[in-house]
């Protein structure tokens, strides 16, 4: 089959690779129709993640059709149109049974790296280096999906592929930020980042009853999208003192809930320790710092950014003196996706505008360049193996 492979720092190429196979009884094979670029792929693409090898297939947000079914699978059959949760979880361990599937004990075929980096194994993910889970990515014609009964979701008839695709990762991540950030009716919620995840966190906050949602970003077009599709107010980071602006807009209190959906800026220096070599070095969480300062006393800050290791200059004093709750997670998609698909079917949640660029799989390298550089107003580029190279 054809797949978009990492071939070196900043370099991608479409190559012929062997088709995936059923490896466990709970697996299905999905023929991919759409697969989205994601900010979480950028450190991989740049070659900043150890263990990534030439030929590894990227991509973890995808939708497609079931073409092969393992003997233990109960909820899917050939022909099902499914969106697949970007993280892999078993559905039956202590964490999965307590609605924390991205913390799954059994989601990774090789948890040694996670154990070394974080002290415990975490759930698996598609499109990571082999030593960090063992599941190839979705920028390909076919993908093997482990634990398909808990990780693949049949898309209800009225929901289009273009909309359901974002139930794989961005929508559950955004929803989780608002939900576990404990947005309550009447709250003022501030969201850093107007990418797909930030916009969907803002929309989730509205649907959970927030009275005002304020989105912070430095991209004009993304801010306009957040206004139009999430019903949010906006602050353009380039022209505003964000903390002062938020204090003014919240009557001096600060936001009740702050959701960080930016991720980390790379600080450029190399790893300083063995731990840093595992984790990718220290990151500068500028948005996290701002969120901690802008949060009201006793409020909560939820971190959705793809942090992998350490941060410098974290404002711990503000956390303790203001009595904040700081929480983060990789998205617990298995917990939210059925509800999100229902909301998509009811038209409460619209996501198709996030796919600003649609390209054939063959033009994957170009798609990532657009996405990485935010060129041409790109929010997400979506790849499809069905499009011919001349399309898009």
């Amino acid at each position: 089959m054809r797949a978009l492979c990492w071939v070196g720092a900043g370099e991608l190429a479409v190559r012929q690779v062997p088709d995936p196979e059923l490896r466990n009884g709970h697996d299905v094979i999905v023929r991919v129709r759409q697969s989205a670029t994601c900010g979480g792929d950028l450190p991989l693409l740049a070659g900043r993640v150890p263990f990534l090898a030439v030929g590894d297939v990227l991509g973890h947000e995808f939708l497609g059709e079931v073409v092969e079914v393992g003997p233990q699978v109960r909820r899917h059959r050939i022909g099902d149109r499914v969106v697949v949760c970007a993280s892999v979880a078993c559905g039956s361990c202590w964490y999965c049974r307590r609605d924390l599937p991205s913390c799954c004990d059994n989601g990774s075929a090789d948890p040694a790296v996670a154990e070394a980096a974080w002290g415990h194994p975490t759930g698996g993910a598609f499109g990571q280096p082999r030593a960090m889970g063992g599941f190839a990515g979705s920028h390909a014609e076919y993908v093997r999906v482990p634990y398909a009964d808990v990780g693949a979701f049949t898309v209800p008839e009225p929901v289009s592929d273009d909309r359901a695709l974002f139930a794989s990762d961005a929508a559950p991540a955004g929803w989780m930020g608002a939900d576990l950030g404990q947005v309550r009716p009447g709250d003022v919620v501030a969201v850093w980042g107007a990418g797909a995840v930030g916009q969907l966190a803002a929309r989730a906050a509205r649907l959970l009853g927030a009275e005002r949602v304020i989105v912070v970003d430095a991209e004009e077009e993304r801010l306009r999208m957040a206004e139009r599709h999430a019903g949010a107010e906006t602050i353009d980071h380039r022209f505003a003192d964000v903390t002062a602006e938020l204090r003014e807009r919240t009557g001096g209190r600060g936001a009740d809930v702050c959701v960080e959906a930016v991720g980390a800026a790379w600080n450029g220096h190399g790893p300083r320790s063995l731990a840093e070599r595992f984790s990718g070095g220290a990151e500068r969480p500028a948005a996290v710092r701002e969120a901690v300062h802008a949060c009201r006393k006793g409020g909560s800050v939820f971190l959705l950014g793809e942090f992998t290791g350490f941060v410098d200059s974290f404002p711990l004093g503000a956390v303790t003196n203001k009595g904040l709750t700081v929480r983060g997670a990789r998205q617990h998609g298995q917990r939210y996706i059925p509800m999100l698909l229902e909301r998509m079917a009811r038209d409460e949640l619209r996501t198709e505008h996030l796919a600003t660029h649609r390209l054939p799989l063959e033009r994957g390298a170009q798609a990532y360049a657009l996405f990485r550089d935010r060129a041409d107003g790109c929010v997400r580029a979506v790849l499809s193996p069905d499009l011919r190279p001349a399309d898009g």
Partner: protein
Amino acid sequence: MAGRGRMGRLAGTAGVALALATAGRVLAVRRRGSAWPRAAGADPRPGRWQVVTVDRAPGEVLPGGRWPEPLRRLGAAVQVELRPAPGCRGTELAARPVPGAAAPAGLAAHLVGDDPGLLVRRALRETKQLAETGEVLRADRWPADRAPGSPR
């Protein structure tokens, strides 16, 4: 530590496990919160216990009192203990290399290498996965693992 007080070691052969079963105790389970037996000797590290918590009752962790395959492979080279986890968290399953024990052929190097706990930890993790999900999760086969153009 076998026979010390309220519980016995689950020995590394199916035969002894059966003996436990015929004695009316399908499993020898330690008291909740009891300490894992200490290693003999001054240096505790080679004997450190590797422990996983399995979200299942002891009887589901070692069905029929027998060691599941991932542990059986290690044979008499490891010592295995069980105790209930606090707060309905299932079963704590512990294992450690037995100092000086003869390891099964091919495994000896792993049990005395840089991290003798690695192999034990993997066996525990696989045992846990079998109890919780019914199978051991396998990674995708990467292109280098197989000949190109193999049939679907």
